[in-house]
């Protein structure tokens, strides 16, 4: 029985190891296409699985810190019941950008293995640096992840509060500022904001230095 199995395996290896003699080109093409569909689909399915909130909060670092933060905010609970999940803001929706972000995320695996933020104290100590990365990313891509849902074109400022409408008119519509410049801390609590423009000094003073 066992020797028969080995014999079968040997035969299979021999078949794979030799160039096709009896198989047609059509078979190889179709087979290759089907295999491609399976592997490509499998890859994207796996990618999508890592793009779910359940995956993100699968580790206690994310569940107890940023996710606990999010649950207090309007991006989690609000009058219309539309909510943002982690990847909505933290992973670009465009495929190439998404792959680039996923590669960057390998650093987070490193952090998980070595317990960089595995206690609330460690997280608090590192929060400003980590938040800084996200602010820089959103500043660089002109708040792309915000704009996946919030578009300036569809924004009816007559439905906004007077102060918000004025600010959007002056800064957003003129491209003087991007969402993240003013709207830090709308989905998580803020770290120590000392020295952050708009929060502890005027944007003009920050630009001057």
């Amino acid at each position, binding site marked *: 029985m066992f020797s028969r199995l080995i014999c079968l395996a040997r035969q299979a290896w021999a078949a794979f190891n030799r160039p096709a003699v009896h198989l047609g080109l059509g078979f190889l093409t179709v087979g290759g296409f089907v295999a491609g569909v399976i592997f490509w689909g499998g890859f994207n399915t796996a990618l999508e699985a890592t793009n779910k909130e359940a995956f993100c909060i699968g580790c206690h670092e994310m569940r107890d810190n940023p996710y606990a933060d999010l649950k207090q*905010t*309007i991006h989690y609970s609000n009058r219309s019941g539309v909510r943002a999940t982690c990847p909505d803001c933290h992973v670009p929706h465009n495929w190439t950008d998404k792959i680039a972000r996923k590669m960057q995320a390998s650093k987070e695996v490193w952090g998980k293995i070595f317990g960089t933020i595995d206690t609330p104290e460690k997280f608090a100590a590192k929060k400003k640096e980590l938040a800084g990365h996200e602010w820089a990313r959103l500043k660089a891509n002109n708040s792309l992840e915000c704009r996946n849902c919030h578009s300036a074109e569809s924004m009816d400022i007559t439905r906004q*509060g*007077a*102060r918000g409408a004025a600010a959007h008119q002056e800064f957003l519509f003129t491209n003087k500022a991007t969402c993240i410049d003013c709207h830090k*801390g*709308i989905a998580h*609590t*803020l*770290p*120590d*904001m000392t020295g952050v423009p*708009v*929060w*502890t*000094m*005027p*944007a*003009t*003073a920050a630009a001057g230095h």
Partner: protein
Amino acid sequence: MNKSFRTALALAALAALPVLAVPLAKVALATDKQPVAQTAQAPQSSTARDVAASGRPAFTGADGLTVQEAAPIPKDVTDDRRKQRNYPEQPPVIPHSVAGYQLDLNANKCLTCHSREMTGDSQAPMVSVTHFQDRDGQVLGAVSARRYFCLQCHVPQSDVQPRVPNLFQDVDSVIRGAHPPAAKGGK
């Protein structure tokens, strides 16, 4: 010899005192217990038993716990118009929404508009100068730590009826009431 024997006897009597006291105390306790049991019995017969049977906590009285539906919290007034103060020292109230404003050791959302540096951009009223001094009147360069938590004194308003009647009159109304302008003009 005789003297030492007497001291020994006295000491023995002292040592025996607690032993002698026990039966006495027992008798006293027994007599004390009688009225206690009686008082406990009295309410048991009427309301206390009903309260216990209903599963309600007994400390709310004979009627038990009554559930009072609270009205939904009304929305804040957000018209951005300054409210008149009722007396000069009244902390001005907030005429805009402060929902989700972070106000802790890390960040102070209020000061991102109301701090001295920001008022040029925001056109919001500046934090009063009284906030730029410590409790000894020493002038500071920034808002004093004891004035940091804005919402301790400044609060948003909502349009509701007072729960209890309020007969407050501001100082100008009181003065005008005491010296009516009409009486002055009559003379």
